[in-house]
């Protein structure tokens, strides 16, 4: 939007505001305020980064999963997360950024990922607790995003939520097997829930009166509910589930409030949350170092793919070789040179 006059700028804004008011979807080629675009890039990128970093705590247990069935479930889940990362980077790219640029911002610490993935997975039960609580919190956050005003993001969320719900049920079922297992297994499950409960509540973000972006995001219908509303909804869902799991939640203040029709719960330690956001959580350093290392150590592979593509898309080579190179599943990484989608 170069050389837009004040009048036409006003006209664009009017159209945009009307679309938002009418609950219409904003699409990539529509005009949108710069701040709306920037907010979406920030949020979708952070979401994509969370899927990618979120592979690490769970992948930590792939090689040690205690049965082949659980190993298969976990592998499928981590694979889905990489897929979600791909959808989300694509959604972000519709806003005029690129995956390379976003990854660079992640690696240099200029963009964040969800604070939850800075906690370590210390036992097998953590994998179940992540499925039940962390994916549960993610779903509570993401289901309203299926109605988000930005079309590509909303559509990505529909696909992501379907798979996430499946993972969440599997996590619950894994915890249930432990809870009903030997005393050692039950203790392992309880310990995991004790460690993951509060960090899961922090996933909804700071309280409403301290949330910098909330008001604007709600006005733009990117967000549909406040952090505290979603957090309350999550607690209300989890308490009966914990009971049926035969596990307790580590909060002495947790009790049903007849008057409100909700569970009351204890205060969250926001200083811990702030420390993690600042990079001082238990695994911040480890997570980002592993991500950077994978990227750096993979550079020669991406360069090879790009060099190959450059050689074999040159017209003098004819088409036979290209056609062969493109057969298959489209899952070959080509370092973003576009060949996989050609």
């Amino acid at each position, binding site marked *: 939007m170069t050389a837009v006059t004040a009048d036409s700028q006003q006209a664009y804004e009017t159209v945009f505001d009307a679309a938002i008011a009418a609950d219409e979807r904003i699409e990539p080629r529509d005009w949108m305020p710069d701040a709306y675009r920037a907010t979406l890039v920030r949020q979708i990128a952070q979401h994509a980064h969370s899927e*990618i970093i979120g*592979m*690490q705590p769970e*992948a930590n247990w*792939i*090689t*040690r*999963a*205690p*049965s*082949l*069935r*659980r*190993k*298969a479930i976990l*592998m*499928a889940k*981590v*694979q889905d997360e*990489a*897929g979600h*990362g*791909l959808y989300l*980077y694509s959604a972000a790219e519709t806003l005029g950024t690129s*995956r390379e640029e976003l990854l660079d911002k992640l690696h240099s610490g200029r963009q964040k990922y969800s604070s939850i993935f800075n906690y370590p997975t210390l036992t*097998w039960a953590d994998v179940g607790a992540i499925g039940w609580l962390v994916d549960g919190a993610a779903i509570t956050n993401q289901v309203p995003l299926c109605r988000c005003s930005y079309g590509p993001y909303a559509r990505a969320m529909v696909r992501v939520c379907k798979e996430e719900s499946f993972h969440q049920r599997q996590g619950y079922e*894994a915890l249930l*097997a*432990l809870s009903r*297992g*030997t005393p*050692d*297994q039950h203790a392992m499950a309880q310990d995991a829930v004790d460690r993951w409960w509060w960090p899961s509540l922090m996933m909804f973000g700071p309280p409403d009166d301290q949330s910098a972006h909330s008001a604007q995001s709600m006005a733009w219908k990117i967000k549909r509910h406040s952090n505290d509303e979603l957090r309350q909804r999550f607690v209300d869902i989890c308490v009966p589930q914990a009971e049926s799991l035969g596990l307790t939640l580590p909060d002495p203040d947790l009790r049903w409030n007849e008057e409100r029709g909700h569970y009351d719960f204890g205060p969250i330690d926001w200083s811990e949350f702030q420390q993690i956001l600042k990079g001082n959580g238990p695994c911040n350093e480890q997570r980002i170092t*592993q991500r950077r*290392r*994978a*990227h750096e*150590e*993979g*550079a*020669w*592979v*991406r*360069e*090879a*793919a790009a*060099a*190959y593509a450059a*050689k*074999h898309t040159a017209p003098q080579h004819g088409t036979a070789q290209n056609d062969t*190179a493109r*057969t*298959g*599943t489209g*899952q*070959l*990484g*080509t*370092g973003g040179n576009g060949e*996989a989608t050609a």
Partner: protein
Amino acid sequence: MGDDALVLSQRLGEWAGHAPVLEEEVALANIALDLLGQARVLLSLVGDEDELAFLREERAFRNVQLVEQPNGDFAHTIARQLYFSTYQRLLYGRLAAAPETGSADLTALAAKAVKEVAYHQDHAGQWTLRLGDGTAESRTRMQTACDALWRFTGELFLPVEGLDTDWAELESDWLTSVSAVLARAGLTVPDGPRLTAWSAGAGRQGVHTEPFGRMLAEMQHLHRSHPGATW
């Protein structure tokens, strides 16, 4: 065959979160998952899958040594995959086409798995081309990997009990297929020995390479720590 699939799946699972590009996170996990699925079917034909996977010691595993080789760099992983999935595709193809080769259960598995391993072979072949015919560095790495793993490929064609197929013909088809991919990638077909005295039939007899024991220790630790537990 079940051990081959299980062990290679375990190795590929180690890549999760470490792949050079996101698409490869998906692809490697996908292949690992296919192989794990095959392993579960095959082990279940013999006994309890978890008992077989988690309670046998190193000397009781019958996988070929190729699949237990450490991941190394991406080129090593791709070379291992090219060698193994070409073998698997040819073997499953024969099993599916000629039921007398193995049992009925095996034929049914082969008919389903041959589609999966065709994709694995395609994936490995595509990457062999890209690395072999990419940059100078990728070419060197790919050639090094192909050479390093070559010594483990002879074992693939030693007769397996219960599988009545023409192993010499299988080997010759394998050589033709692998050589063609390497040639297209501008790589040299390695010329080292493919069956040496020390490695002859070793994996199938339960004699493995050093890294294998450590891999099993990691894989089995949790299961063994809770005897009799269900998960």
